[in-house]
């Protein structure tokens, strides 16, 4: 077909299919006469060569500003609730070990993760509105222009956008990419897209260190992730998976006014995954972390002197690796356990900082664990370094080999050190501490 028609068979088939549909529609559907539709009109704007990408970036920023700033009071309410519950448990339970488990482990650890339910649900609500309105597929179309020029496959951007929710279904969605090389590239770069589990880390560090610019700091992480994914895809295309990307045919739905019920349902479907994780893997890891942070019981004086705990020993042993970044042993522990699930990074701080009246974010600042520069580098590190264990499992299943999950972990860890090092180095050159 390619030889006869001089074009890709997929493109020809799509064109013929739509011509056939148009003919049937002409004879079967009677439409109200109008010279143009709102969909045509809006596509002139949102798919515009020069304006398309700036509009996409502006809307993406709006999503994260909404996610962060609008959810703040709701986070405060959840935080107040767990603070009250922790105090109630600590006062009401006679056995000190059980009281520590309930107050510090469950309320402090798990509670510090559940505080991020509002921003996660807000993010999914905003993404659902964009998706239901028909805009999200336009974003993929707009990005396809850039990606194709760089020698990448435009369809790769759709799993990338799905990666905002969770990397696992996004990696599974690459099955729709027929070309094996395009598919492999998309799988390997997908963990660079910030999933919902990383959002609590960004919101915690961003909120604590960047004040009114916190939403922009979170937005910067999402843009950094997309930029790195495109850069790495380009490197893989030039090295491991040489060749030309297959053409991209995408059906654009018409624009629609999003319905509140549908958007809320989509939000719930995605958001409940976070609640499930909080009740399963995060809960188990929090119990493990609590145990390691209060034992040996006598040496830590019932969890009072955390410096003497098992987890402190582990953190201090590995901390020299991260010393050039200015991160202490608590951050080292957060990074190690974050491999199990990224939300655990937040839970680790909730447990190790042993906060009472003040929030985890305030404690991070008052204890001087981060400056804005080292905090930003840490956010970038969490974005890039090894994805969670479930994502590694998904890569293994989809590639049917252990080679690619191991490769992903190695290249992402190296990249995380390079990018965080560059942030710290350039920041110091610019006069930041």
């Amino acid at each position, binding site marked *: 077909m390619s030889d006869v028609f001089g074009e890709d068979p997929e493109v020809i088939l799509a064109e013929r299919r739509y011509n056939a549909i148009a003919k049937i529609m002409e004879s079967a559907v009677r439409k109200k006469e109008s010279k143009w539709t709102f969909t045509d009109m809006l596509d002139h*704007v949102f798919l515009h060569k020069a304006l398309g990408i700036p*509009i996409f970036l502006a809307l993406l920023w*709006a999503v994260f500003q909404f996610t962060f700033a*609008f959810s703040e*009071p709701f986070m405060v309410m959840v935080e107040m609730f767990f603070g009250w519950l922790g105090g109630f448990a600590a006062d009401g339970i006679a056995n000190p070990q059980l009281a520590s488990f309930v107050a510090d482990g469950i309320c402090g650890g798990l509670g510090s993760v559940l505080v991020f339910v509002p921003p996660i649900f807000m993010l999914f609500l905003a993404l659902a509105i964009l998706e239901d309105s028909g805009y999200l597929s336009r974003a993929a179309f707009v990005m396809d222009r850039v990606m194709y020029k760089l020698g990448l496959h435009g369809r790769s951007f759709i799993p990338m956008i799905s990666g905002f929710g969770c990397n696992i279904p996004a990696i599974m969605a690459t099955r729709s990419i027929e070309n094996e090389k395009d598919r492999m590239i998309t799988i390997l770069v997908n963990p660079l897209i910030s999933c919902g589990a990383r959002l609590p880390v960004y919101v915690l560090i961003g909120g604590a260190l960047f004040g009114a610019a916190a939403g922009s700091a979170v937005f910067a992480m999402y843009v950094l992730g997309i930029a790195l994914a495109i850069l790495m895809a380009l490197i893989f295309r030039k090295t491991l998976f040489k060749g030309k990307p297959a053409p991209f045919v995408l059906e654009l739905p018409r624009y629609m006014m999003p319905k509140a019920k549908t958007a809320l349902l989509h939000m719930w479907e995605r958001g409940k995954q976070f609640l499930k994780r909080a009740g399963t893997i995060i809960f188990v890891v929090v119990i493990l972390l609590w145990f390691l942070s209060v034992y040996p019981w006598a040496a830590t004086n019932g969890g009072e002197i955390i410096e003497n705990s098992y987890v402190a020993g582990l953190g201090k042993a590995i901390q020299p690796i991260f010393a050039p970044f200015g991160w202490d042993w608590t951050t080292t522990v957060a990074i190690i356990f974050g491999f199990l699930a990224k939300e655990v990074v937040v839970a680790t701080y909730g447990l190790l900082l042993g906060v009472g009246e003040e929030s985890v974010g305030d404690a991070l600042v008052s204890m001087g664990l981060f400056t804005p520069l080292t905090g930003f580098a840490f956010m970038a590190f969490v974005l890039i370094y090894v994805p969670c264990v479930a994502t590694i499992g998904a890569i293994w299943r989809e590639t049917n080999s252990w080679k690619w999950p191991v490769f992903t972990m190695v290249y992402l860890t190296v990249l995380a050190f390079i990018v965080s090092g560059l942030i710290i180095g350039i920041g110091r050159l610019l006069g930041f501490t």
Partner: protein
Amino acid sequence: MTDFEIGKGKTIGLYAAVLGVVYLAIGVIEVFGGAGDAIPGDLFGGFALVVIAATFLNGVKRSFDGEHIGLSFIIGGLFLAAVFGILYLLLMGADGLMFLLGEAEEFSVVADFRPAIWLFLLVLPLAYLARELTKEVTW
């Protein structure tokens, strides 16, 4: 042949041009650090206003010529202006809630009444004019 009456196109184009220039000026001021309490510095917020300005200004000439593409850009600008106006209104509400929860020392409606909000109010008459021209248009 024009897609709509030239006179209406000129009115709507002129309004969009004025709005575009105002959005551009305020956006640039926000990007470069702001000017007092009325226009606070906001890098990405300013960038968004510049994008809205570019969208409006892109549609001016073709609106004057009575082409529907001109109207398309003006409607696109209206959508974006609405998104950012409503966004800042929500953020104002969130700030108020933070004050009620005792997490903020003060809540000033004046300080929270960001340019994206009052510009959105200025855009509403244009939305009405655009609606008049697109009554027959379907989705």
